[in-house]
C-alpha cells in the first residue's frame, strides 16, 4: 500500500450547470468517483474496512443552483499532469459537469468566504418598480427560519442581511436580475435559497404560477475580504 504522503494534492475547479443543477451533493460525489475510474486517474483511497476514494469538496452547492466555480481536492499518485487529468476527466464526465482547471492548491478550502450569485427571476408581475422593491428588500433586515442542530426545535431565526454584500437589482425587460455576494464561510453560510424565501415572505413572489421560475448561478468566489478571488 502506497502511503498517503506519496500522493500529490490536486485541486479541481469545476462547473455544475444545466441539468446537473438538480443533482444532490451525494450524487455528485458518486458521479465523480466513477468518473475518476473511467478517466484512469489514480486517486488516493482511504484505508480501513471499506476503502473508498477520498474526495474533499468546498461547501456543497444548494440543490437547484448552478455554479461556475466549485472546488474539489484530491490526492493523485505522481507523476501528475494537470492538463491531462483535466482532459481525461472532461471526456468522462456528463456535459453539465466539467472541469475548468486542475492545479496545485495554494489556499485552504476554508479560505473561501464569499460567493457571487446571479439570480434571474421570471414572474408575472415583473416591472421596474418590482425591481426597486426587491432592491430595498435586500437592504433591510430579512428574517429567515433555518434548520440548525443547536436548538431543540431544530429551527432558528436569523437575519441574513449581514451576510449579503454589493447587491444590484436590474429589470431588463425580460426578467429581474439580482447580483449579490453571499457569505459562504463555514460559520455563516447564506444559502441562495434564503433570498428566494425572502422574496416570498416579504414581497409575495412565490413562483407558483404557470411560466414562473427562477435560476441561480454562482459566478465567482472570494476570500475573506470579499475582493480577492478565491481559487
Amino acid at each position, binding site marked *: 500500500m502506497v502511503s498517503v504522503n506519496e500522493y500529490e494534492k490536486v485541486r479541481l475547479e469545476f462547473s455544475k450547470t444545466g441539468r*446537473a443543477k438538480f443533482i444532490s451533493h451525494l450524487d455528485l460525489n458518486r458521479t465523480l*468517483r466513477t468518473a475518476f475510474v473511467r478517466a484512469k486517474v489514480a486517486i488516493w483511497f482511504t484505508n480501513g474496512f471499506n*476503502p473508498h476514494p477520498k474526495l474533499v469538496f468546498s461547501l456543497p452547492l444548494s440543490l437547484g443552483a448552478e455554479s461556475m466555480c466549485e472546488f474539489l481536492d484530491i490526492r493523485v499518485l505522481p507523476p501528475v499532469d494537470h492538463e491531462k487529468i483535466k482532459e481525461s476527466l472532461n471526456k468522462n464526465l456528463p456535459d453539465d459537469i466539467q472541469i475548468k482547471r486542475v492545479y496545485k492548491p495554494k489556499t485552504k478550502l476554508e479560505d473561501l468566504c464569499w460567493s457571487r450569485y446571479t439570480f434571474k427571476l421570471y414572474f408575472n408581475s415583473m416591472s421596474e418598480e418590482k425591481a426597486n422593491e426587491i432592491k430595498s428588500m435586500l437592504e433591510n433586515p430579512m428574517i429567515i427560519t433555518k434548520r440548525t442542530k443547536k436548538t431543540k426545535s431544530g429551527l432558528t431565526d436569523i437575519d441574513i442581511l449581514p451576510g449579503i454584500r454589493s447587491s444590484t437589482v436590474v429589470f431588463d425587460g425580460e426578467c429581474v436580475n439580482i447580483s449579490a455576494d453571499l457569505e459562504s464561510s463555514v460559520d455563516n453560510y447564506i444559502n441562495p435559497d434564503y433570498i428566494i424565501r425572502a422574496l416570498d415572505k416579504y414581497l409575495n413572489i412565490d413562483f407558483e404560477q404557470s411560466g414562473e*421560475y427562477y435560476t441561480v448561478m454562482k459566478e465567482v468566489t472570494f476570500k475573506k475580504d470579499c475582493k480577492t478571488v478565491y481559487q
Partner: protein
Amino acid sequence: MNEKYNIDGILRKVLKPGRYTGGEYGQIIKDKEKIKCRFAFAFPDTYEIGMSNLGVRILYGALNKNENIWCERVYAPWIDMQQQMKKHNIPLYAHESMDPVRKFDILGFTLQYELCYSTVLNMLELSDIPLYAKDRGEEYPIVIGGGPCAYNAEPVADFFDVFSIGEGEEALVEFCELYIKMKESGGYTKEKFLHEAAKIEGFYVPSLYDVSYNDDGTVKEYTPKYDDIPTKIRKRIIKDFDKTYFPEQFVMPYIETVHDRIVLEVYRGCPRGCRFCQAGMIYRPARAKSPEVLNRDAKTLYENTGYDEISLCSLSISDYPHIRELTDKLLEWTDDKMVGLSLPSMRADSFSRELMKRVSSVRASGLTFAPEAGMQRLRDAINKNICEKDIFEACRAAFEGGRNQVKLYFMCGLPTETEEDILGIEKLARAVVDEYYQTENRPKGRPTVTISVACFIPKPFTPFQWDRQSTMEELVEKQQLLASAITDRSIKYNYHDANVSRIEAVFARGDRRLSKALAKAAEYGFKFDAWDECFDYDKWLSVFDECGIDPSFYANREFGEDEVLPWDIIDCGVSKEFFLRERHKAYNDTVTENCMKSCAGCGANKLGGECTWCPSTNTKK
C-alpha cells in the same frame, strides 16, 4: 433545459428531481436531422427501477448501434411530478431530447410484470396518446410491447399495435428497419406496415386476429384476418449468445437506482424446470456465455462505467458450468481494483463453501435460498429439486463463513399443497436455527432466519398454467396458520399481500375482455399498482364489478386441459404437451430431471441455436 417547457420551475417542487433531468453520462445523443426512426423506450415504473433493468440497457444499446435509429428513454414520473406536469401542461417527454413522446415514430413499452399495466395506460395519457390502438391515427407513434408479459398480452392487446415476442435485441432492429424501408419507399400506412410486421417472426399484431368465445366464457378460437400471417406467433431467440450484442457502456444514473452496478448476464434461461416458474420456461433453451466473453465484457464495462461492483446475473447462477473459471478470471483483476463481486441468486444444492468464500473475499452480499416449499413431497411436486440436506449444508457453510442471517423464500397456495406443507415451512426454518447452534465455529449471537412467503400465481407457459389460485380466504387462512406456528424468536416471517397476488393472477391469465377493466382503471387514475401506497384492492374489485368481469373466472378457476387458452396464439418453443406431462407428473409427486442431466423433450431445442444443454433437433430423444 427549459427551452421547451418550464421544467426548471416544476423540478424545484418535486421529490428527487434527478429522476427527470436526463443528461447522465453515457446517454446517447444523436442529430435528429439524420435520424430515420425515433424510438421512445418506455419503462412503466419509476426511473430508479427502469434504469436498473438489464434488458432495457441491452435494447437501448442495440437500437442505438444502428445509425438510422435513435432510441431514447422514458420512465413513469412519480405522482408529484405528474401533478406538476398536468398543472403546467407538460406532456410526457423522453430523457435525452426532452421531446414529447407523442412525436416519436415508435413507442415501446417493456412489460415486466402485470401490475405495470395501469401505469402503461397512465403513461399513454400523460403523452396525450389515445389509449385504444384503433383510435390512433397515422399521426401517433406505433405502440409496441415486449418483455415477459408479452407472452400473454391479451389483457392489454387492445392498447398496443404490436408485440415483440421473445428476445428483442435483433428483432426490434429488424422491426425499425422495416419501418424505415416502408417510410422511404413512400407506400407507408400504419395498416400496411403492421401487416408486413406481422409476417416477421416474433411479431404479434393483435388487431389482425379475431377472438371468439364460447358460451361459458372461455376462448373459442383465434382467427387470423389474412392468409399470409402465421396462425401462431413463434418467439424469437438469440441463437449464438456469445456473439450477441452486449452493451459496452451503461447510462450512468446521477441518482441512486436499485441496481447501480455492472450486471453480467451469465446465461439466459434456466436448465432447472421448476413447474411454477415462467421465466424458467419462456427463456428456454438455456444458453450460456463463455467465461472469456464474460470476462471481456466485465473489463470493458468496468473501464467504461467505473462501477465498483459486478453482479453475476442469471436465474440460477451456480448451475453455470464454468462458474469456477469465470470467478477465477474475474478475481484476477477485480480484487486489485477494489471491485466487488456479487451473486444474486444461489441454489442451495450447488452452493459451495468455496464459491462463497471467494466472493465474500471482496464484499458480502445477502444470503438467500429458495426452497419454495416446506416439505420434500411438495418440492418434488413443483420440481424444485433440492433436499433438506442441501439446505442445511449450505446454511452451515454460510454460518461457518461468519454469517448469522439467512433468508429463505417460500410459496404458499401451490397446487397439491396441504396443511402439513404449510407447517413444514416453520419446521424447516426451525431446523436451520438448530443447524446454526450445532455449527461449532459459528459467529457470536443469535441467528436470524427470515422466511419470506409469496402467494402462488399460476402463470401462462408453465405446467401450472391450468391450476387455480387459492382464494383470498384460503390464502389468508394459510398465512395465519403459519404465523401461529412460529414461536422461535430467531425466525422472522414476511408474507406477501394476497390481494396483490390475486390481481396479478387475473391479468396473468387474462384475455382481451380485460381491456375494458384497464381502460376504466385508467379513467379512475390507477397507476403504480406494484407500489403499496398506490395499490387499492377494493377499487380494483369495483372496477371489475362495473365492467361485469368476474375476477375469479381468471384467478380462481381451474382451466380445462382441452380449453383454448388466451395465450395459445403464442408459441414459446416449449410444447403444450410437455406442460401437460409436467402437470400430471406434479400431481404424482414425480420429479423431472433438469436439462443438465437429461433432456425432458420440452421442444425448445427446435428453436435452434447454440444451446448449452439441448440435444440438436436431428437427434430426437
